[in-house]
């Protein structure tokens, strides 16, 4: 058989697939790029084409109408890897621990008005269901991502949601112990399933969760639903909480926004990446516009239902308009060109 010589294979400074770049690769590139084997061939898996998950991956990932010649070329603007994710989140969680410890030491919950405590039971503690739907949706998108650099972002997003499901549960338990008669820890499911304030988000997320095309679910989740959730729960609720003397909730919302803003950064970068595709950019823009048109009314309705029920002072229409303006800006060519 053919004999090769060592000299044919001089040592490399990095993986062969990164060696063509002139600069030294970052840790992020070394451990994050081109990791899926299921995108190497037309058939995602070695199993037969009629196996349900073979069909699923071909239909909802490979044949997605959002197209790009090189999904592996996408890069997370934060260049997050597992190791740094834990470092950052360990620090963030220490901060949240300190907030919780400080406020419980100051008998924060005892000082809340009865009226506000009632509103927390309606508008805050049931949020674990909403956050959990995002945890599930992000996990679906991790499973269906067309490249590892995209998948990793979704993995962190799903982990972030578990973080806030947990912190919401933590606060639920604290509030239950101070205000045992309000139904904390027991009435959340009924509120999530029945209270009008939540039904818009519930409908939005139930429908997002069953939108199997990976790209449409990504757009629905991270470019429409999640910004709406952030606007309603993290910004509006936070402001109203502050006005009602609930500094702890306002600060927790602010901490949660740090995670959300990271998701926004890579999600908008991924959208730009799709719009910048030389072959498919124009089609992708039309497609995303059609998805915005489809999903925005559900998100607007969700924001309006939640915000207008939360407090009379809130201008729910303004919140929805800001979201719409921002979405629109994402698709304007000028926004693309300036980045």
């Amino acid at each position, binding site marked *: 058989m*053919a004999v090769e010589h060592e000299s044919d*294979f001089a*040592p*490399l*400074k*990095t*993986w*062969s*697939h990164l060696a063509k770049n002139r600069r030294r690769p970052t*840790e992020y590139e*070394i451990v994050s790029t*081109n*990791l*899926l084997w*299921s995108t*190497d061939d037309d058939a995602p*898996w*070695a*199993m*037969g084409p009629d196996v*349900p*998950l*073979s069909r699923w991956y071909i239909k909802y990932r490979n044949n997605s109408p959002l197209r790009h010649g090189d999904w592996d070329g996408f890069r997370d603007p934060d260049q997050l*890897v*597992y*190791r740094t*994710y834990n*470092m950052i989140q*360990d620090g963030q*969680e220490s901060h949240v*621990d300190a907030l919780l410890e400080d406020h*419980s030491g100051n008998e924060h919950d005892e000082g809340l008005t009865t009226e506000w405590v009632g509103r927390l039971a309606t508008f805050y503690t049931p949020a*674990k*269901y909403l956050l959990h739907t995002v*945890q*599930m949706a992000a*996990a*679906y998108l*991790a*499973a269906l991502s067309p490249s*590892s650099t995209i*998948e990793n972002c*979704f*993995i962190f997003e*799903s*982990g972030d949601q*578990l973080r806030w*499901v*947990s912190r*919401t549960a*933590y606060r639920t*338990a604290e509030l239950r112990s101070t205000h045992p008669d309000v139904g904390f820890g027991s009435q*959340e*499911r009924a509120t999530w*399933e029945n209270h009008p304030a939540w*039904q818009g988000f*519930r409908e939005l997320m*139930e*429908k997002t*969760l069953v939108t199997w095309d990976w790209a449409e679910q990504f757009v629905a989740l991270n470019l429409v639903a999640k910004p709406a959730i952030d606007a309603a729960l993290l910004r509006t609720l936070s402001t109203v909480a502050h006005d009602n003397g609930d500094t702890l909730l306002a600060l927790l919302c602010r901490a949660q926004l740090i995670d959300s803003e990271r998701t926004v950064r890579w999600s908008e970068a991924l959208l730009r990446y799709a719009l910048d595709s030389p072959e498919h950019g124009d089609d992708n823009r039309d497609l995303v516009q059609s998805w915005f048109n489809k999903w925005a009314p559900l998100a607007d309705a969700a924001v309006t239902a939640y915000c207008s029920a939360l407090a009379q002072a809130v201008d729910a229409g303004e919140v929805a308009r800001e979201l719409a303006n921002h979405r629109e800006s994402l698709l304007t060519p000028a926004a693309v060109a300036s980045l």
Partner: protein
Amino acid sequence: MPLLERSAWYDIARDTNWTPKYVEVDELFPPDQSDPYGIPVAEWETFDEPYKVSYREYVSVQREKDAGAYSVKAALARSSYYEDADPAYLSMLKLHYGAIALSEYAACQSDARMTRFSKAPGMRNMATFGMLDELRHGQIQLYFPHQLVSLDRQFDWAHQAHHSKNWAAIAGRHALDDVMMTRDAVTTSVMLNFAFETGLTNIQMIGLSADAANMGDFTFSNLITSIQSDEARHAQIGTPVLEIMVRNGRKAEAQQAVDIAFWRIHRIFAILTGIPMDYWIPLEKRDRSFKEYMTEFVGEQFERQLLDLGLERPWYWDIFLEDVETHHHCQAAATWAWRNTLWWNPTGNVGPRERAWLEEKYPGWNDTFGMYWDVMIENIRAGHPEKSEAVGMPAMCNMCQIPISNKGGTVWQARAYQLEYEGRLYSFCSTVCKWIFELEPSRYKTFNTIADRMYNGEISPNTPESILQYMGSGVISQGGRDAHDLAWVRAYDEPGATPRLVAGS
């Protein structure tokens, strides 16, 4: 006020099931992705993970674990350990990283499927950590070998193996695609968390860790021990899943899932672990034999867990125990003979002392596998090392994608188990691989073994050179050769060595 104990809020965080209103339950949880067994949601809500961890604890503990693993690596990075290491030991690392790094990463998607599609809220949370764990294992097992590509191009396979059509990578992917990539969330958990992670990963991660420590490679030893500590946690997702299945009249399906996955992964891991342990690690550094590890970890611990759950040993248990004494010896010889197809350099390393050890650990080794090596050794000593290299393509198993092979020598057992299905003849290494095929032929029937690809024109022209090229050998890196350039054969020249030469061979 101190912070609340985890137990004060934990149940609230895993009370996240709701009744969908705007979509149907079966839309939200399609049976093909979620639970094809129709177990009631209320049953899934009893899911109680034996090992509990909060997000806050997770990021803290994992940060510390990473700090430990990376600092050991950093501290030893300036030593010339790898430059001076036994080339056969480096082969173990090449095989490990090539086979494992992207496989662990692939498991992120298996855990992601459980996070999305499990009807058990506790399981969805645990699988979220599992998904993060597998990301860790994929990334750290790329980061560590990355520095070694500057030492040896074969380490490029840590990233490339699973993008290649190398036969060994094909075999690995076929098993993983079957067990963890194309099953619903419930079956994936039984196959991956229980059969694979509870049953077999500790062989690789604990067993090899001991050998690596004996070899002085504390970077690797520490790394895989750290990885196993994650596996041991998220593997526990499988136990309550099995309990719920058994309680809901799905014991037979659970048993079948365990039986399929355990066999499939065993066939791969025996090569991955068994060959380095019993052949490549120098005699004085070997911790235990592969069989001894398997007897303890699988024969005792895993078997006990199966029985505790109300399951049985797989029906093929006797065949499995026989396979533990057979399969990796066959493949040690076969992979060595076909060494130019590999991305690592195997060593034969069956000198007189090693053979005495093998005979002690595997009574009868000399009269079976040993007779094959006798021929190889005789040819090498007669000045014909080229006769120790196999040419052409062996028959491949249509299930495990591994060369069909069995005991040779005086107890010749080599045979293929064949099946004609829809006009095509399928060959299997064993009744177990044939059984798996017959359970669901449509799942497996279309796949072409690498031997099939030679005959159907996918590998063209049908020459030894183009076969090697197709497999990436001589393309991604130089192909494999004997790690010690056959130096181990010289042990037979020493006074007192008693080579067993077979008359007329």
